[in-house]
Each structure stands twice: as C-alpha cells, then as structure tokens.
C-alpha cells in the first residue's frame, strides 16, 4: 500500500466525493469528516514512512500515459512537498469538521473533497503535464466555492479569479511545451518528467524566456504585485472555508512551483531576475501592508496581509541559498497555518454578526475573551513574534536574502514594522475599548465546533515555533540538493558566485549536453 500511497492520497478523496452523492444529506458532515480524517491519517503515515535522510524523491510512482510524447503519470514527494501535502489534508479536515451550517452542505463537502484531490495532485506530481492538469483542475472547485456560497458580489469575484489565473497558466503551459521541445532537441526523446528536465542545461538566453513564461503563471497564482488584485475579491466574497483553503494551500502552489520549476530549471535566469523579483517582493511587502492598513473590512486586512507575507516567501526563495529557501518553505507552512487560522477567526464573528466591518465591532475582548486570546495569539504569530511558527520562516528568509543584498533586506525587513501596524490597529479596533454596539453585548464566545479547528492550529503555531526541527530537517535536506543542483547547472560566472556550493551533497549528472 505504501508504494501507492501518493495515488491513494490523491484519488481517495475524489472517490469518496463521488460516493458522497449517495449519502444522506443529514449524515454528510459526518461522512465528510470521516473521509478527511482518514486522508489526514494517511498523510501522517506518509510522514512517518518518509525517510528524513534522503534528499531526493520518495514514494515514486510511474505509469505511462502517452509514451511517444514522454507524458507519464509520475508522482513523488521530497522534503519540499511533504509538509504542504500534510497541510493540505490537515486544512481540509479541520475545514470540514468546523464547517458552519450553510445551504446545500452536501455539495460543499463534495466540492471540498475534489479540491483536496487537485491540491495533493499538484504537490505530488513530477510530470509537467500531470502537474498542469491538477493545477488547472484546482480552479474548478474553487470557482464553485466562491460562486455558489460566496457573498453578494460572488459571480464577479469567481469569474475574475478563474479567468485571471487561467490566463497566467496558459502562458506557463506554452513554456512547458517549449521546455519539452528543447529537451527533445537536446536528447532526441520527448519527456515531460521534471526530474529529466533537471538534467538539462539550457543556454542563458533560452532560460530567460522560459523563466518569464513560467513566471507569469506562478506570479499570478502567488499572487505577486501587480497581479494581486484578484485575491482581495476572491477572499472578500468566498465563504470562510474557501478563504481558508485559498490562503493556506492554493497560494502556496505558486511559491512551490518557483522552487520546483524555476530555480532548478533556470538557475542562470533566476540569478538574472533576482533583483527585479526582489524589488517586486519588497513592493508586495510594504505596499500591500499599507493597503491592508487602509481597509475597513477585517477580512480584507487578512487578505492583503497574505499578499504581504507571500512577498517574504518570494524573497526567501530568491535568496538562492539554503537558509533562505528553507526559510521560505517553512514560511509557506507557517503562513498557511496562521492565515488559515485568521480567516477561520474572521469567520467566527461573521457567523455571529454577518458583517466584517471593523467599525461594527469594538470591545469584543470583554464579551468574547477566549476568542480574543486566540486572535491575539494568531496576531502575534502573524507579526512574527519569536517562538511562534511565522518567526522561524520569516527570520530564515530574510537572513538568507541578506547574503544577496544588504539594502534590499533592510527594505524588506520593514515587513516587521508595517505588519505590526495594520495587525495591531485592526486588533485594537475590534477588541479594545468599550462595547459600543448593542448587538455585540451578548455575543457568545467561541463554541466547541470552532475550537475544534482553532485549538490544533494554536498548538501547531507554538509547537513549530519552539521546535521547528521535525519540519525544518527534511526541508533542509531537500533544499540542499536543490541548491547544489542549481550551483552545478549554473553556467554564468555570476550565477556560480551567487548560488553557494553546498558541500557534502553529491548530485550525479547524467546529461550535460546543451540544447541547441
């Protein structure tokens, strides 16, 4: 069973989703929770069986699909994807378990199970076409979630989300086709396998174009400034569960793809584009943090704060050294946990008051002390307090990038100031002061169903903040091999200098032929 655990992880939720049509509406929640719990247990088993000392791919599966064009169903996990897969199944589980009552809950749970399939598929796929299929398929359940259960402006938001990211992905697809064609020219065989592509050294001029094509797809997904405007609409209109999954997992597809594709395939182009991307990342950090400060709606604050934090992740990725990339992957997990929790927390008051405007609240710390405490914890994690999960990732990302540029890191470090400004202001508006609005006077504190999701997230926030080693260790091993691969493949002198040589990791290169 362990040989096919990745396939099981991908298709079990989809299969269960199809079966779900036959389940009685009343027992749907229990059914969905059970499926998600089994799925999460399977992902934990994956972690348990995962060999921390291996830096390469594990649990590989290989089924030929279109052999003449080198399109195969190839799966595998390494330290980079493992924890994102676990996080995806974790969030689906607590998302379904803590789902607040809504109309047609049966369809929603089925949608979520399909979404889970696509998410895990993206992170486990090692073939570009399979990756692309899951990548695009993930848009469909999300489109449903926003379009069917969203707010008043949901159609506009969901169509915008779909078309915008879909357009970007098409450019990425063209890039993939070109990449496969170059591989064919260099080796005489077609292949869409990412691991095969890793062995191909492209001339820098090719790399630049391909990097740009992939970049469009990834940057819209992340979303990077100035391609971020779909996100506030999507979050603003999506139901709580949609926002949680979007922020926690779907956004990570973009940053994950940078590490899986852009860096190892195009090391010279990565170095070439490092400064422009870092500048975009810094604009993301500061600009969106300021926009977040100007918001009146608490959910929009969290949405823009997501963009701001994704900026730090991008910066860490383009540090191009082990510290920075490990930090950025860790921050992906951390941001998933914290922003997921924040969206859940926003959902708690939205369920009670059906408004998200901060001016409607005030003094909630008097009436909902437990809620205020958990919100306070997540707030502190979000601003990067040490011994919370976010700090580890943020610290390592910035530390890593400091090797590349002093002044840009100083600018990016403003994140810790502007992040505190919008978060503390929002907290003050909602929780501090006297209760001014009569409707807030008797709000019930968080209930058991909500705590079911919030308490595990709080525990993870602190546990991985104090003891990040179980996650950071495997990440570190895989990142070291990625960095070494980049160093070996780099052709330009600058790239060789910028990407450190990680000693002790030996990567065997079989193909060094250049594509022409």
């Amino acid at each position, binding site marked *: 069973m362990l040989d096919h655990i990745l396939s099981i992880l991908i298709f079990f939720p989809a299969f269960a989703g199809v079966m779900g049509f036959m389940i009685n509406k009343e027992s749907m929640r229990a059914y969905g929770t059970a499926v998600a719990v089994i799925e999460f247990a399977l992902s934990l088993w994956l972690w348990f069986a995962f060999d921390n000392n291996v830096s390469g791919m594990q649990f590989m599966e290989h089924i030929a699909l279109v052999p003449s064009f080198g399109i195969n169903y190839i799966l595998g996990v390494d330290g980079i994807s493992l924890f994102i897969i676990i996080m995806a199944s974790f969030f689906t589980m607590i998302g379904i378990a803590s789902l607040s009552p809504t109309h047609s809950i049966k369809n929603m749970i089925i949608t979520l199970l399909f979404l889970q399939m696509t998410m895990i598929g993206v992170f486990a796929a090692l073939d570009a076409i399979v990756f692309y299929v899951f990548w695009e398929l993930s848009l469909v359940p999300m489109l449903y979630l926003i379009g069917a259960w969203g707010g008043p402006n949901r159609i506009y938001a969901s169509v915008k989300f779909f078309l915008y990211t879909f357009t970007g992905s098409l450019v990425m697809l063209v890039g993939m086709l070109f990449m496969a064609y170059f591989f064919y020219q260099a080796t005489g065989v077609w292949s869409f396998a990412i691991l095969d592509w890793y062995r191909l050294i492209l001339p820098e001029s090719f790399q630049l174009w391909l990097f740009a094509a992939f970049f469009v797809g990834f940057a819209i997904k992340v979303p990077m400034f100035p391609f971020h405007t779909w996100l506030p609409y999507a979050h603003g209109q999506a139901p709580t569960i949609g926002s949680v999954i979007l922020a926690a997992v779907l956004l990570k597809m973009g940053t994950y793809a940078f590490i899986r594709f852009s860096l190892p395939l195009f090391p010279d182009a990565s170095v070439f584009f490092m400064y422009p991307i870092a500048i975009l990342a810094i604009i993301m950090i500061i*600009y969106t943090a300021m926009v977040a400060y100007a918001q009146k709606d608490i959910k929009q604050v969290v949405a823009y704060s997501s963009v701001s934090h994704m900026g730090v992740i991008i910066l860490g990725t383009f540090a191009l050294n082990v510290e920075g990339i490990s930090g950025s992957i860790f921050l992906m997990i951390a941001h998933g946990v914290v922003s997921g929790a924040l969206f859940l927390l926003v959902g708690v008051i939205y369920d009670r008051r059906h408004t998200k405007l901060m001016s409607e609240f005030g003094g909630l710390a008097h009436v909902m002390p437990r809620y205020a405490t958990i919100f306070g914890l997540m707030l502190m994690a979000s601003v990067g307090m040490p011994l919370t999960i976010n700090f580890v990732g943020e610290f390592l990302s910035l530390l890593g990038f400091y090797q590349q540029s002093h002044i840009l890191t100083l600018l990016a470090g403003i994140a810790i100031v502007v992040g505190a400004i919008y978060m503390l202001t929002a907290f003050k508006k909602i929780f501090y002061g006297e209760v001014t609005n009569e409707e807030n006077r008797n709000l019930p504190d968080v209930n058991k169903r909500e705590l079911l999701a919030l308490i595990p997230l709080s525990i993870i926030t602190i546990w991985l903040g104090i003891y990040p080693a179980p996650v950071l260790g495997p990440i570190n091993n895989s990142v070291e091999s990625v960095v070494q691969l980049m160093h070996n493949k780099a052709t330009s002198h600058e790239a060789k200098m910028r990407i450190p040589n990680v000693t002790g990791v030996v990567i065997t290169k079989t193909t060094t032929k250049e594509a022409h």
Partner: protein
Amino acid sequence: MEKYLYIALFAPLVSSLFAALFTTTPKKQFVGIVASLLIFTAFVSSAILLTHILGTGEIVHVELMTWMATGNLYIPFGFVVDQVSVTMMMVVSLVSTIVHIYSIGYMDHDSGFNRFFSYLSAFVFSMMILVMSDNFAGLFIGWEGVGLCSWLLIGFWFHKESATWAANEAFIMNRIADLGMLIGIFLVYWNTGTLQYDGAFAAFANLDHATLTWIGIFLFIGAMGKSAQFPLHTWLADAMEGPTPVSALIHAATMVTAGVYLVVRSHELYALIPNVGLFIASLGAFVAIFAATMALVNRDIKRVIAYSTLSQLGYMFAAAGLGAYWVALFHLMAHAFFKALLFLGGGNVMHAMNNELDPFKMGALGKTMKGTMIMMTLASVALAGIFPLAGFFSKDLILEVAFVDHHFIIYTVLLLTAGLTAFYSFRIIALIFHGEDRHTALGFHPHEAYKFMLVAMSPLLILAIIAGFTMKMPYFEMVTELLPATEYHIHSHTTYWIMTIGTQVFVLLAIFFAYKKYMCSSVKVPDGTSKMEKNFFYKLLINQYYIPYFYEEYIVKAYKALSVVFWEQIDKKIIDASVDGIANIFYNTGKNTRHMQSGNLSTMLKWMVAGTVALLSLAVVFGLAARYSGEITIILSSLGV
C-alpha cells in the same frame, strides 16, 4: 548548578501559565500568592547561582535543545550564567518578586487580577531569556517577548483608548528599532558564521573596521528602541498608561535597561569601535539632559518619574559608550532599586488619590502617608546622588568616568543633569507630601497603602540606601572577571575632593531650591493663567519639544493618508482598473462586433464585400512590396532606418 539555572528560568513561565488558567474566572487571591512564590523561587535560584559564581568563578553554560538548524546556521536554546547575566538575573528576579507581592495589594480591586499576574510573570520569563541566552537569536526571543508583555501590560486596561493607543505605539516604535537589531544579527551571522556570543566575539577581532562599525550601529539601533533613546523615546512616557507596578518593573527597572545590557554584553565589539562608543555616550548625555528638562515642568507624577528613568538611561549609555561597562551595569542595578521604589511609592499615592496624577492637586499628603513619604524621599535622595546612598556611588562614578577620559562636554552635561534631577525629583516630593493641603478641597480622602505593600517595598528601600557602599567592591571584583577592569581615579586628590564636594553642594542646592519653590503656600493648581505657563520654554517643555505632535502630524497621519491613497487610487483605480480594462477590451470587442452576425442577409453581404476588398487590397500591397523590395530597402536605408 544547572538545576538552579532551569528553575530560575522556568519558574516564571510556570507562574505565568498557572495564572493563565484562571484568566476567565473572577479574582482569586491565591493566584497572586502562588505567582509571587514562584518568582521568589526564581530569585532564590538566582541567588544560589550568584554565590556559586562568587565562590568558584565558574560559569554555568547549558544547551537545552536545537531551535533552528538549516544550511550552516545553527541556533540552539543555549543559556549562560556568567558574572554579567547573574547580575541582571538578580536585579530582575528581586524587583519582580517585590512587584508581584506589591501587586497583590495594588490590583486588589481589579477584575483582571489573575490575568495581570499571568502577564507579569510572562514578562519575567521573557526577561530571563533575554539576559540568560548565550546567543543573539535567543536574546532576540527575549527582546521580542518583553515587547509583547509590555504591549499586553500597557494596554492592560484595554477599555481605555489612551492605554491601547500607548500600547500600540510602544510596540510599533520598538519594532522599528528591532529591525535594526535584526539587521545587526544578520550581519553578525554572515560575517562570523555563528550567532553564539563566544564564537562571534572571537571572530570580531579578524573583521575589518567598517563591518564592525555597521554591526555596532545596527545592534545599537535595537538598543535605542528598548531603552527609549532619542528619537524613539516618546513611547516610554505614554507607556505610563499601564498599571503602576508595571511601570516600576518594566518601564523603570528591567526592560528599558535591556539596551544597556546589550551594549555591556557586546563590550568586546564596542571596545573595537570606540567611535561608535563615543556616539553612544554623546547620545546618552544628550538624552540625559533632554529628558531631565521635560521632567521639570510635567504635571503627572508618573511621567516625571518616566522622564527621570529616561534621563538615567542616558547616564548608563554615557558610561557604556565610554567603555566603562561595569560602571554602566552598576548604575543599572542601583537605578533599578531606587527607581522601582519611587514608582511603587507613586503607586501608593495614586491609589490614595483615586488615580489622580497631578501633584498640584495633592499637597500635605505626608500627614496621612508617612511611610510612603519616607520611602519616596529616600529614593529621591538616592536618585539625586547624595552620599552615602546608592546613587552617589553609581552616578558620581559616571561623572568621574567622563572627567577622567577628558570628555568634558559630556561631563558638563551630565553634571548639569544631576542638578536638574535633584530639582525635579524634589519638586514632586514637595508638591505631593508637603506644603498646603490642596486635595481636601478637591474632594480626595487619601489613605495609606496596605501594610504588606510597604513591607514588600522595604527591601528596595534598604538596597537604595546600602547598595552603594556595601556592594560596590564585591560587585566590581565579580564582573571584572568578564568586563574590562578599568578603574577611574582622578589623579589629583584636590581635584577629586573639589569635584565630589562641589557636585554634592550643587545637588543639595537644587534640592533646597525645589523645596523652597514648591512648599510655599502660594502654590496653586495651574490654570493656564500664570506668567510661567505663557512662557515659550514652558510651552516647549510641557509639549515635550513638540516631538509627539510632530510624529502624529507628519508621520502617523502621512502614513495613514498614503495608505488610503495606495488603496483607493493605486490599487483600485490603476492596477485593478487596468486588469478589468484588458478584460473589458475583449468583452466589448465581442459585444460590438456581435452585430455583424445579425443573420440579416444584406448586412452580411455588405461585410463579405468589405472583407473581400480588404483582403484584395492587402494582396496588392504585399505583391507590390515583394516586387519592389529592393527599392524599398534603399529608400528606407537612406532615411536612416
């Protein structure tokens, strides 16, 4: 000994978690008692560690576990108890024990009693991490932890707008400085390859001067935030919105001295870059007199004491900047005792006066509050630096340091500040406890604080009196195992005696002047009509040199306005509008060209003809271009294309 290290470190954490269990329940007296006992345990453990170090000179160093390890970076949770950290541990645990006990009385009627102890103990835990860590990352944990607790405690009465505002101000302003500190840490890592103190300090000797200077500057920026040095000082006075025990513990005795501790801890770095040291000393001297002038006119006893703290922090930085690290640490310790005492006394007064803070509305409180009066007076004498109290030994030493090192400008500034310190301290003493009774007319019925609160304060009183002459020599011998043992002696005996006696006389005159001015019967509650209040300098000082006003008008408001512009104008109207614009181009093209396919035969025929004509014309143009391509090339090239 490791056992005691862990007890000293984790007892406050246990205390905090224990109190946290009761945060949602009504006030429980035993929570305060248990918390105080646990903090006292930490104090006892610290004392055992102190005797161990005094006895054997052995440093206790432990590594609990790995925190972060990736690439070449390795950060453990490592703790070290050496001569410097044990001094800090003693100060922190002693003052916090006293403040915990005092708070049982002070927070007696507060509904957030249990929550208060949880926060207060969490602060002690963070502070212990800060002083005990053996690396910069661990220091940063404590650094941010005390910032968090400070935020929680300033905003403890979160129903008050002013309190929550001050809490956020303190946190954000500290964050600005923390960025500097973080950059300093990055510099240390990429230049030395480690964040452990011993490894990094050993590697500093081989680094070039410019790098060291940058490291020194960035770390000091971090210190400036926590220790509220100009221009990041405004948060400290506003932080007085928190409960008074908090002001005594965090904003006087311990947290604000973290910056001084950082400089003392990094003395091996600052010894290599004396020019940065001189800058630190100059800034310290400037802050000393700058804060003292603001204290002269302020009408809020807590703010006066806060400015006094700021001024004394300036003294400490002056000493540390000039390389007299042990003197800075000694003043830190002595200051912690008498300043905490002063604040707790101020707390008694506040309680007695139903949270009234204007000393002009008090007067003659000495009759009802004899114990508090004696304690506050003695604390002020110690602060003013009168022989033989603690301040004399620590503060006069700093003056001597400046004099011996021939920094006469710094010396003069600090000497003047000593006079100002004596004046403003006794101004509030005279206004609160002596002179005419002004409070009864305003409807106040003051009463003395609980007995046990006064008893709890008494160790501080004793230390404020004896810390100077009993502890100076043993302390010197202990810390100079680690810190440079420079002794500052003025060679000429005549100069020494003139200076010492001169300073004493100057300070005594200032005290006398303060008593004379504020004890007389003509003191009234200022109502904005007196000549002094119309004076330009008075206005300048009472408005804190208009610096908070400047920050509010030109930074806070500008930031807010810019944020709104970014959102409303740029994000919505430029970025998002262009995205929608592109989408609309496609949409509108489709919408407008839809009419072509109306199904009407004559319309469609018209379009067909138009299409044929367009295609034919294109064919003709291309045909001609192909035939005359040679000529076209010549014409274009002659045009310079």
